[in-house]
């Protein structure tokens, strides 16, 4: 049995390498988010955003951009027989879950590294809120990566895979979005960042991350059986 640490590094390295070489997810996600910001600018007819509107625009855009990446997360495994290889390999199968969650987490962080500064450039007056926003982004990304990996691995083996991810994932991440926008809203308020119930929302995010990471870890084995 290969140690889990080695297997984890191998799968994660494989994912990141193939993404770097093919660039099939990240540029699309980034481009999508920038285009969506532009559409929001004209759809809302605002050049400056603050408070709940800013939080909503940011999180809706990030969520839909994430769905693009989540859709493609297991496509290579399915098309190139990666699932069979994982099943044959003498490794713990949950390693695939943790590696994929980490890969998706890195994609999301890279996406936000591009999308959030552009959002600030387009809509915000000052960048003062971006510092504390990092903690919200990090916690929300962990939850999104855990649920996204779980749903993606289920959807990829179905007939309607591109349809299923948004359909099942969106209701599932509603609590995550509530907490993330709840924490972001005072941060982006007019007249400097506020911290109204900031800690509480971070705790809800952390609880969501914990529960879905555990659930995903526990049930992932059954998705690989054949």
């Amino acid at each position, binding site marked *: 049995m290969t140690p889990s640490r080695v297997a984890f590094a191998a799968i994660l390295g494989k994912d990141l390498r193939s993404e770097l070489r093919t660039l099939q997810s990240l540029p699309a996600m980034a481009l999508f988010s920038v285009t969506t910001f532009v559409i929001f600018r004209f759809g809302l007819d605002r050049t400056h955003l603050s408070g709940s509107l800013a939080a909503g625009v940011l999180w809706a855009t990030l969520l839909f951009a994430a769905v693009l990446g989540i859709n493609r997360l297991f496509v290579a495994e399915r098309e190139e027989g990666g699932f069979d290889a994982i099943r044959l390999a003498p490794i713990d199968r949950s390693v695939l879950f943790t590696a994929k969650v980490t890969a998706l987490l890195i994609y999301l962080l890279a996406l936000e590294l591009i999308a959030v500064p552009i959002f600030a450039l387009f809509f915000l007056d000052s960048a003062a809120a971006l510092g504390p926003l990092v903690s919200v982004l990090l916690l929300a990304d962990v939850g999104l990566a855990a649920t996204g990996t779980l749903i993606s691995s289920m959807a990829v083996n179905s007939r309607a895979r591109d349809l299923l991810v948004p359909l099942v994932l969106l209701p599932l991440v509603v*609590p995550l979005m509530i907490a993330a926008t709840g924490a972001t809203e005072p941060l982006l308020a007019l007249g400097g960042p506020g911290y109204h119930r900031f800690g509480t929302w971070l705790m809800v995010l952390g609880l969501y991350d914990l529960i879905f990471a555990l659930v995903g870890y526990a049930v992932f084995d*059954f998705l690989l059986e054949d």
Partner: protein
Amino acid sequence: MYGKGLKPLSIAAVAMLAVSLSLVFFYAPLDADQGFIQKIFYIHVPLATVALLGFIVGGLFAVAHLRTGNSRWDAYSYVSIHISVIFGVAVLITGAIWAKASWGHWWVWNEPTLVSFLIVFLLYCTYYPFRYAIEDRDQQARYASVFAVTAGAFVPLNFLAVRMAQSLVHPRVFATTNGGLPGSMMLTFLCCLAAVALLWVTLVKFELAAKSASGQVKRLRRAIDAPSTGPSSRIAPEVS
């Protein structure tokens, strides 16, 4: 085998519902504040409670299915969720009627319990297209169970998040420290809860019996080589 005990169970459910409804209309006092419309709570709240518990029970059956690999648990899980989704429709409708009478709107967004129930309901609605999209029966059963477990964990979490996000306008009759409901209302409510729970169990049993019967018919038809008649559902699990 699923048909066994169905008759007494149905009779008990009908009798219990009749008793509860007569209690609601003739025994429970009129609410001083809200008047007659408050009586819809005796059916709305039990329906919601039973639907949510049914979702969680479906998740527990799914855990049993994943642990044992016995496809009967998958059928139990499917039917539990199925009946709970139907109850969910009734919850949303009765809730909207009460909201219209009490608040003047069919739908109120800043009402946490309403919104969180809608989110749970929407998530479980995706259970059907999700099942439908997977062809292989074993895989379908396994994936559906994973979905049911995940969604079962989601139910309490969702209520926490939505409740924190919004103001508290939903009447919380049991949460108040000094008394809450008077005894006669409490008795009526508990009676209604028992009746609705019994109705849920009866419907689940009916559905299982119907599935088992149609599965048997299909097997017998196959045995005598007759063409199957009627559309067969590809979503629903077969019960042996």
